[in-house]
């Protein structure tokens, strides 16, 4: 007999649960939809048996979305940048997350969140998934500008603006996720988010060019992102 069937009239009903258990997430699209509409269902999934599957879906979706937006970034220069930019954007994003994850786990614990590593990985996967989903939403606009603009500096500024907007939404979701994990103080998580932004910005400089062209896949000269930006602006491109 299915235990979830309604009990026949006259039998004792079990006491109601204090918090309704969200419905399990079925397919990949329902996971992505839940991330945007009902993120609590996704956070809840990280605590259950389906955590691995949900995280795998989020990571796959991030890879696809980052690659798609990478193609749009590469469409400015076309040629080899059409494959180089997506590869760099996708791998750079994942590498940034990997090197930032240990400190996130520690900062979350310092903030009082009783969390397992899988939940932290899940929240971060949710952050970058929402981030890249929004970027894909911006992709048509970015593509139009790619086709009609010849200034690398302007295109760089526009991609950064889109990324910051998607970050703003993603960070709100991320902080809500840590509140869901009973973190008492979110100050450490906010500091981590600032560090994450800096790391991603530096990664975009370390993996340049993303927008322009170069004979080399990776730059030979090491440069910090602010210095690189000023350099680009000075060149007036």
């Amino acid at each position, binding site marked *: 007999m299915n235990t979830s069937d309604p009990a026949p009239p006259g039998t004792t009903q079990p006491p109601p649960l204090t918090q309704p258990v969200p419905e399990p997430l079925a397919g990949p699209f329902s996971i992505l939809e839940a991330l945007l509409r009902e993120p609590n269902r996704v956070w809840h999934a990280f605590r259950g048996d389906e955590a691995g599957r949900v995280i795998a879906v989020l990571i796959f979706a991030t890879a696809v979305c980052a690659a798609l937006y990478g193609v749009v970034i590469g469409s400015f220069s076309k040629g080899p940048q059409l494959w180089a930019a997506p590869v760099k954007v996708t791998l750079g994003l994942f590498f940034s997350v990997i090197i930032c994850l*240990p400190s996130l*786990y520690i900062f979350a614990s310092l903030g009082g969140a009783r969390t397992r590593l899988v939940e932290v990985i899940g929240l971060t996967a949710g952050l970058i998934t929402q981030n890249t989903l929004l970027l894909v939403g911006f992709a048509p606009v970015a593509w139009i500008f790619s086709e009609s603009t010849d200034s690398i500096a302007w295109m760089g500024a526009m991609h950064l603006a889109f990324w910051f907007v998607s970050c703003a939404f993603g960070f709100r979701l991320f902080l809500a996720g840590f509140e869901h994990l009973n973190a008492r103080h979110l100050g450490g998580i906010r500091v981590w988010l600032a560090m994450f932004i800096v*790391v991603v910005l530096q990664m975009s400089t370390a993996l340049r060019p993303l927008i322009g062209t170069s004979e080399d896949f990776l730059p030979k000269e090491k440069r*910090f992102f602010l210095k690189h930006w000023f350099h680009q602006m000075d060149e007036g491109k």
Partner: protein
Amino acid sequence: MTSQTAKDDGNPAPLGALLAGEPEAVARDLGRPALGTLGRHSTVIVIGAGLFGASIGLWRDPVQALYTAVKLPLILLLCATGNALLNGIIGAMLGLKLTFRQSFLAILMSFSIASTILGSVSPLLFFYVWNMTPFDPAHRTAEGYSGLMVLAVAAIAFAGIASNIRLVGWLDRANASRVLSLRVLFCWLAGNLVLGSQLSWILRPFFGSPNLDVQFVRADAFQGNFFQALWIAVRTVVDR
């Protein structure tokens, strides 16, 4: 803390619970056999501070990375051990309700928390070093060297503050008096500052100066002391 009943199933408290400052976790670790807790937290210090040391020494040379990875945990372990008796005595004199063993382990655990934080940010420092202009042996210059020092000092300061906030929380729990906890913490910090700074002086260099060769300790390691050098530095600034 000694009177506290902790749920002790024989296993050490999860590191996450210690980081979160959960009193039951601290009580559980302090209540375990000393050797087990000592071994566990020493291992965390060796790994965490070792990784951090490697990341700050790497900009200069891989050998410097190895040296600093050995020296940084060594300073923390020597500092905790060297001041164990002094800290225990001071704690007892000020009325701290912890045994000598528990005082020593509490300090070691706070060092372990600091090392965990330092270890967790070491991938970021590795990334910073990867983005630095490589050290030029011919001209003995490296762009970004000062930035690396600032970042490392900021990380150490953050780890030190966070670990001491946890430590004072444990002391509060043991004493039920914030004033006493702060007094004990102040004395412990003062003792650890004196020993720790001199150990750092002897075991320098950590970053590896661009103008000097890579070495485990300097030839003049046992000449002078940290505070003497600090005094000379202050005089130099004031006399300008």
